[in-house]
């Protein structure tokens, strides 16, 4: 292997190039990213950056010197526009054609948007520039409407209200995040919004961003000075259309995270078959981006010793004064049991059952050892009966 190209210069792409070098790859290594910045970290954008505790100099993932030491052919501010799979070249917007023998696709996702007259002025929150633009508009005397009470919308609502902004949070589902974390944990999150003075309205469908607010599907206008749209994201696979690579909900990869011979996907953009859970998944979590970037680098370099990518997914989210941490695959769970602590005190550990196995665990305010022990139960695919016992089911 003489030339590896990595498209997408963020968490997954960086992990791939670093791992390639660490594993002894000495050939040409091209890292292509359309943002003008060195790879930086996104989770702080909706936390310390939005809240003003950190300035942008805190978010680069590596120092310039550490990046330099990787000996990269680094092309920033350049978009990949096409892929010739048979000819093994990536086309760039600046007209360049970059040949490869190994390719890592790590182009992430972009925010889904809403239509409407005010759509142009609505905020999204994905990039550093997005976060700085929104932060400029928050504070006492301002009204912010956040559309979507998922983890991102909820974090932004919490931070904005902490800055004195009057926040309305609109969510179509009756209980926010219920499919992800279950109804009881979802209701705990609902209470947290109310306790902190955020006006969470559930069962509300937003039709469009209007001038001066958002228009609901029943025609009502919810007035706001600023609108943040946080309704999920779309994988950045447009540049791969027509390339012959399998595209569906993201780049479709096998259990090795490969999409074609010597072509791998990693991070938010990649959907792959996780053999540990026996299902295909696409994960938009920070840790997965790194782990998958590392895994594909190793598989690319050692085709004869490839390993399936079989992680226990992990995410955290900061909400007001507490942090949620979850390990495993909670989607599609059939039962939730609070196995330690109490939901009401916002100190608890909840286990999630799929079939007869512990599929995941979610913790708030619990000692790290307890969380790691339960993570181990997920990693070993422990039987629910053995790990949780015959607890009375407390509803999903």
């Amino acid at each position, binding site marked *: 292997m003489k030339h590896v190209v990595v498209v997408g210069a963020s968490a997954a792409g960086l*992990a791939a190039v*670093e*791992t390639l070098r*660490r*594993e*002894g790859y000495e050939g040409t290594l091209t890292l292509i990213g359309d943002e003008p910045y060195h790879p930086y*970290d996104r*989770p702080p954008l909706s936390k310390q950056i939005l809240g003003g505790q950190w300035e942008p100099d*805190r978010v680069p*993932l*590596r120092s310039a010197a*550490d990046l330099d030491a990787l000996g990269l052919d680094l092309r920033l501010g350049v978009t990949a526009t096409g892929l010739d799979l048979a000819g093994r070249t990536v086309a760039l917007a600046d007209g360049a054609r970059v040949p490869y023998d190994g390719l890592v696709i790590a182009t992430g996702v972009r925010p889904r948007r809403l239509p409407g007259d005010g759509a142009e002025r609505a905020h999204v929150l994905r990039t550093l520039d997005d976060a700085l633009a929104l932060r400029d508009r928050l504070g006492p005397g301002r009204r912010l409407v956040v559309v979507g009470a998922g983890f991102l919308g909820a974090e932004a609502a919490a931070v904005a209200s902490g800055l004195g902004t009057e926040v309305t949070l609109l969510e179509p589902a009756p209980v926010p995040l219920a499919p992800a974390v279950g109804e009881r944990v979802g209701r705990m999150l609902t209470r947290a919004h109310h306790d902190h003075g955020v006006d969470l309205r559930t069962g509300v469908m937003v039709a469009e961003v209007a001038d001066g607010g958002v228009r609901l599907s029943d025609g009502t206008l919810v007035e706001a000075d600023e609108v943040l749209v946080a309704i999920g994201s779309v994988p950045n696979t447009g540049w791969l259309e027509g390339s012959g690579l399998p595209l569906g909900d993201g780049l479709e990869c096998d259990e090795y995270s490969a999409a074609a011979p010597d072509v791998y996907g990693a991070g938010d953009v990649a959907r792959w078959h996780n053999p*540990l859970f026996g299902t295909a998944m696409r994960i938009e979590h*920070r*840790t997965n981006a*790194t*782990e*998958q970037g*590392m*895994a594909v680098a*190793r598989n690319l370099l050692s085709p004869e010793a490839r*390993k*399936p*990518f*079989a*992680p*226990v997914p*992990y995410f*955290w989210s900061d909400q007001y004064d507490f*942090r949620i*941490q979850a390990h495993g695959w909670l989607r599609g769970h059939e039962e939730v049991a609070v196995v330690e602590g109490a939901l009401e005190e916002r100190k608890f550990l909840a286990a999630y059952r799929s079939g007869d196995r512990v599929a995941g665990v979610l913790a708030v305010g619990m*000692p*790290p*050892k307890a*969380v*790691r022990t339960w*993570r181990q139960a997920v*990693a070993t695919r422990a039987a629910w009966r053995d790990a949780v016992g015959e607890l009375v089911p407390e509803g999903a």
Partner: protein
Amino acid sequence: MSGAGGGAGSGEDKGVTMRVEVDVPKCVASGQCVMIAPDVFDQREEDGIVVLLDERPASELHADVRESAVVCPAAAIRVVEK
């Protein structure tokens, strides 16, 4: 750590000295470092924030420490090698 490949590149590298730095305010208490290199990292009982146990780990731990630095989801671990 399961899945992300486990065994890092080189095993022991005698003669290389390593210094580990952690940027504590960046840590998000994920525990990834503790799972990979429990002799070098621990977590505070009350909030899970990283505790550096061994600033100059022995050579047989170097591979795991490098792995931790890459995996850390907050880029809070830095490894300086000479």
